[in-house]
């Protein structure tokens, strides 16, 4: 049944796409993951080719000047443009060296990954502190935590990013990366705080009482008894929050951080392969989030030993 539905959806999409005039150019996509860069190797001075040594696919060209200057250039064999004994002037191209380079999609993916990872770490830390403040008996701490959580949850992330960049970034002279990470971390922190609070409150009071009755301090009780149990319970919602964060990180492209989304947008302006690139970008997000959920699933099973 599932297969039939999926087939129908695929066929329907296929049919609809056929109706419009769109030229699919999938062959243009791979070069944005990785491509072969050709770099011209030029002699820096006037001189003579004194030796060409073959090394597999490459050739090592040695150029010597009339003085005693010497330079060795490595070029790909089939792009070799000189022969032994030839006279060269400064700036003449000896040949081209080829090497694999990562394309903008990979750089964008990398930016998205580190941006999400750094914001997650800060967000988790912030959320833990705020969550603890939220359940504390101290009125001031609790008040600050509530105001923070309500402000963040009540405003759109896009607006927060704009405020972080255009207002805070200007006032405190922050780079766009700091603003982007900061906005994402603050955003994630507020949601993590609520998850942490719910987790802590779900642990029965008896656990705290038992630990305190053994003479453990409040801090020891929280750290050794309550938090480990709460963490196990909040792992599924917490992982959901971090998966959201990876996806939400696409919004930082509005402040010109070249993440995966922004890279996609840039590639489209030069290729017009709109459909293909957005589909590929979506697939890359999906890949990252699936890997993360698998990881969490594995952790959950590991933690289930004491059940």
């Amino acid at each position, binding site marked *: 049944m599932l297969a039939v539905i999926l087939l129908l959806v695929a066929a329907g999409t296929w049919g609809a796409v056929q109706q419009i005039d769109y030229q699919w150019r999938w062959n243009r996509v791979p070069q944005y993951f990785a491509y072969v860069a050709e770099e011209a190797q030029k002699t820096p001075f006037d001189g003579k080719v004194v030796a060409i040594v073959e090394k597999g696919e490459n050739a090592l060209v040695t150029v010597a000047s009339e003085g005693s200057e010497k330079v060795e250039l490595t070029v790909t064999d089939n792009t070799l443009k000189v022969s032994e004994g030839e006279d060269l002037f400064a700036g003449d191209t000896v040949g081209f060296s080829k090497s694999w380079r990562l394309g903008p999609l990979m750089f964008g993916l990398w930016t998205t990954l580190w941006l999400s990872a750094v914001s997650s770490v800060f967000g988790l830390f912030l959320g833990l502190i705020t969550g603890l403040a939220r359940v504390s008996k101290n009125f001031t701490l609790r008040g600050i935590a509530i105001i923070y959580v309500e402000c963040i949850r009540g405003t759109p992330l896009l607006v927060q990013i704009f405020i972080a960049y255009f207002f805070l970034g200007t006032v405190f002279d922050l780079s766009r990366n700091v603003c982007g990470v900061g906005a994402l971390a603050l955003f994630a922190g507020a949601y993590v705080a609520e998850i942490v609070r719910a987790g802590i409150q779900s642990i*029965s009071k*008896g*656990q705290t*009482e*038992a*630990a*305190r*009755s*053994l*003479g*453990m*301090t409040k801090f*020891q009780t929280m750290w*050794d*008894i309550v938090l*480990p*149990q709460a963490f*196990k319970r909040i792992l599924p919602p917490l992982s959901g929050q971090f998966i959201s964060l990876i996806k939400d990180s696409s919004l930082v492209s509005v402040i010109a951080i070249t993440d995966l989304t922004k890279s996609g947008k840039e590639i489209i302006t030069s290729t017009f392969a709109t459909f293909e690139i957005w589909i590929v970008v979506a697939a890359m997000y999906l890949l990252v989030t699936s890997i993360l959920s698998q990881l969490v699933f594995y952790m959950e099973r590991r933690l289930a*030993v*004491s*059940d």
Partner: protein
Amino acid sequence: MIKAENVVKIFPGHSGVVRAVDGVSTEVARGEVVVIIGPSGSGKSTFLRCINGLEAFTEGHIIIDGVDLADRKTNINKVRAEVGMVFQQFNLFPHKTVLENLTLAQCRVRKRSKKEAEEKGRMLLRKVGIHEKADEYPSRLSGGQQQRVAIARALAMDPKIMLFDEPTSALDPEMVGEVLDVMKQLAREGMTMMVVTHEMGFAREVADRVIFMDEGKVVEVGTPEHFFTSPREERAKLFLKQVL
């Protein structure tokens, strides 16, 4: 050893205040086993919880080994380390193995080395008869076994006093015996104990003194022999008629 003077605990309720513990005074000597009985809601558990500071009392003094709990300067954690507590719901730490349950507080509070704590833990598990379950998680144990682990966990701190808050009330009937046996053994070894329980047989056999509480007040105090055969107070007579 323990001296309670006119202890009052007031809970704010929906319809006025509830005087859960209402002017209780008593003294427990070293090595004495005191059993507190009474109908539910009589404040006996609340009184017991006041003794190790789980419940902050409103008025009065509780003096343990010369340290007054009502004094603001008292470090409650130090007092608690000397007062073991066993709960109705066991409250074992589910994410730690049985042995880790016993060693954690020893390492954190008593600052013992891991090796020393484990030796002590295994010795106590042997004493309560569940040595072979040391590396299991509490969820794999029966209720009676869990409660025995909880007793061992409290004993691992070398407490001067043990408090038992209805330790057998959450157990299946066939498991009550094994827990009571451990408690009887403790009493024989000279441990100072305060026990809130509904096990009249235990009270009769082990207690040096029985305190009968009702509506937050101590109604009658006496030896088990006196209390179970010829109680003076009407309320005590009525209670005994209902439970025996």
